[in-house]
């Protein structure tokens, strides 16, 4: 009996450390390929010359690649206008969304008040609903507030839809910041708001970065709400602009692909830049204690 146990004990570590786990690595490689393939296809299509656009060949780099599609997107369409609109809306959504989430999460983390638990559950529940369900009531509300066809309209809508998640995220983080830090700061001479601003927020940069990143990805890629709220073409965001390239009888797939590649660059850049915070932030809550 004891001999058996010893054998298992001797073998188990070598399984993990000496031999790579082929099964796991194989599966991960396949999964990675599946998710990267469409992106590579888009890149390939965007480089195709016009007469090859409907080619069924699968090679990644087409014969005689060209940047004509990129040139056309940048010169013949309103690409820069769409990009500008998207940047404004995304930036403001992230800024306002994170500010609101941080203050709300702080209140939920630090103060006891009637309805606190209900509010947290309610916030969670709204996450379970598909966003499309909210579309019609949202439209009427924005109309009442005369926010239809304005930046403010979409920004309000985006903030509302991202807040539940970001509030939960930040509340969870604030819960791990010891209260005595704020108390020490108050004894040192800060007000309650001052200690939130100068002690809690600087300590929470990883989670604030995650919250902001979440808002950015949500707002940057959103289409349906923007479609409903924004009506005049000078307010179009890039996903709506891309749809403009779809004509009644034909779709300019080359332009479509080139524009898609271009708009992916900012999000990927933001993601890569913030990934170190993202990783440390995701583990912080668990390690502190």
């Amino acid at each position: 009996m004891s001999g058996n146990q010893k054998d298992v004990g001797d073998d188990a570590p070598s399984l993990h450390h000496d031999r790579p786990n082929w099964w796991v690595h194989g599966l991960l490689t396949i999964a990675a390929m599946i998710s990267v393939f469409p992106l590579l296809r888009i890149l390939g299509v965007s480089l195709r010359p016009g007469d090859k656009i409907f080619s069924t060949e699968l090679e990644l780099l087409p014969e005689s690649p060209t940047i004509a599609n990129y040139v056309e997107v940048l010169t013949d369409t309103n690409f820069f206008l769409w990009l500008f609109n998207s940047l404004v809306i995304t930036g403001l959504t992230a800024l306002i969304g994170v500010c609101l989430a941080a203050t709300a999460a702080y209140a939920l983390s630090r103060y006891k008040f009637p309805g606190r638990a209900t509010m947290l559950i309610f916030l969670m529940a709204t996450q379970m609903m598909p966003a499309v369900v909210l579309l019609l009531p949202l439209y009427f509300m924005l109309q009442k507030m005369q926010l239809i066809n304005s930046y403010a309209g979409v920004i309000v809508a985006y903030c509302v839809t991202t807040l539940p998640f970001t509030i939960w995220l930040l509340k969870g983080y604030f819960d791990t910041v010891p209260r005595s830090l704020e108390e020490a700061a108050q004894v040192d001479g800060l007000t309650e708001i001052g200690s939130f601003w100068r002690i809690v927020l600087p300590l929470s940069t990883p989670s604030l970065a995650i919250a902001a990143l979440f808002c950015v990805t949500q707002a940057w890629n959103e289409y349906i709400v923007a479609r409903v709220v924004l009506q005049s073409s000078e307010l179009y965001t890039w996903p709506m602009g891309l749809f403009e390239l779809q004509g009644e009888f034909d779709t300019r797939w080359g332009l479509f692909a080139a524009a898609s590649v271009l708009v992916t660059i900012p999000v990927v850049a933001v993601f890569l830049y913030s990934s170190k915070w993202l990783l440390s932030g995701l583990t912080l809550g668990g390690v502190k204690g």
Partner: protein
Amino acid sequence: MTASLTITNVIKAFGKKRVIDNLSFSVRPGEFVVLVGPSGCGKSTMLRAIAGLERIDSGTIGIGDRDVTRLDPKDRDIAMVFQDYALYPHKTVYENIAFGLRVRKVDSATIAQRVDEAAAKLGLVHYLDRRPGALSGGQRQRVAIGRAIVRKPKVFLFDEPLSNLDAKLRGTMRIELAKLHKDLAATIIYVTHDQVEAMTLADRIIVLNGGTIQQMGTPLDLYYHPRNVFVATFIGSPPMNLIEGQLVHADGELIFRSTGGIVVTVPKAFRDTVERLAKPGETLLWGMRPENMHVEEHPVTKTKPVHSVYDARVSVTEMLGASSSVVCDILGHELHIMLPEPHRPKRGDIIRLAWASKHFYLFSKNSGLSVSEDLNG
């Protein structure tokens, strides 16, 4: 710079439970006062109320001649050292110590001078560029103290500052705190549940239980003249033994006889008070300090009084080096005693013990109050 502190009729309740029940005391400028009591006695709440971190329901708190009851913590001119140190993890040691001064817009030359002074005093000179995460527990505690002293506040508040340190470091820090108090001549309110800290550090101890003051006085006052059973058993280590029994008169003497048959003559100096305060036939508790029992070397003779000398069966001995802590049984009473060298009885040994002390503690079992000394007037 230092100031007095006056607490008047302070009440604080959490829900229905009063954690501070009409507390009043005052602290002289430069005095080191320790609030001591078991957990949940209200000592930390009282300290937090003095700091302004906890609003009180009624009563007043005065620092110097200023009523600070309704002021924010930042306006009270106090500094506090927290149990978990509460250092700002994202700031260096220097910035941690300087933070309070920066917030108060002190010019940076003064800040540098005060931080350097404090760092020198606390042995932190080489650690000023580090972050708290890179320091040991003792060093963190020093930084927390540094942060308090650079502010030169009117009153220092310490909330169980040594409880997160290991035993050896606690001893060292205790001595350093005592020195620091001498150096700064500051008013200090110090909260602890450790009666050793209270005894060694305090000019005056306030023993709290259930939100009320059990007794206030110098450490020796509380040790020699405990007002009630709670204080008697809380102060002193190991705690005082309590032996149940009654008073009887015999041969013109007043005698305490325990339920098991231990007999102690009430010393003459205490006799009048005991007769006045103890109700006839009342069940009493004789308080016997572990250090007041000694091994009787000489055989019992006719000339020595036979009572107060008993054979004890040893059940547990803890060797502490120069002394031994012994649990033994005398006539069915389990007693805890401390014996100096060379006595090291083993389990099962029979030793002959005698009680001798100038101090005599007798309490009413019913009220818990002392009947051997009139301390309740």
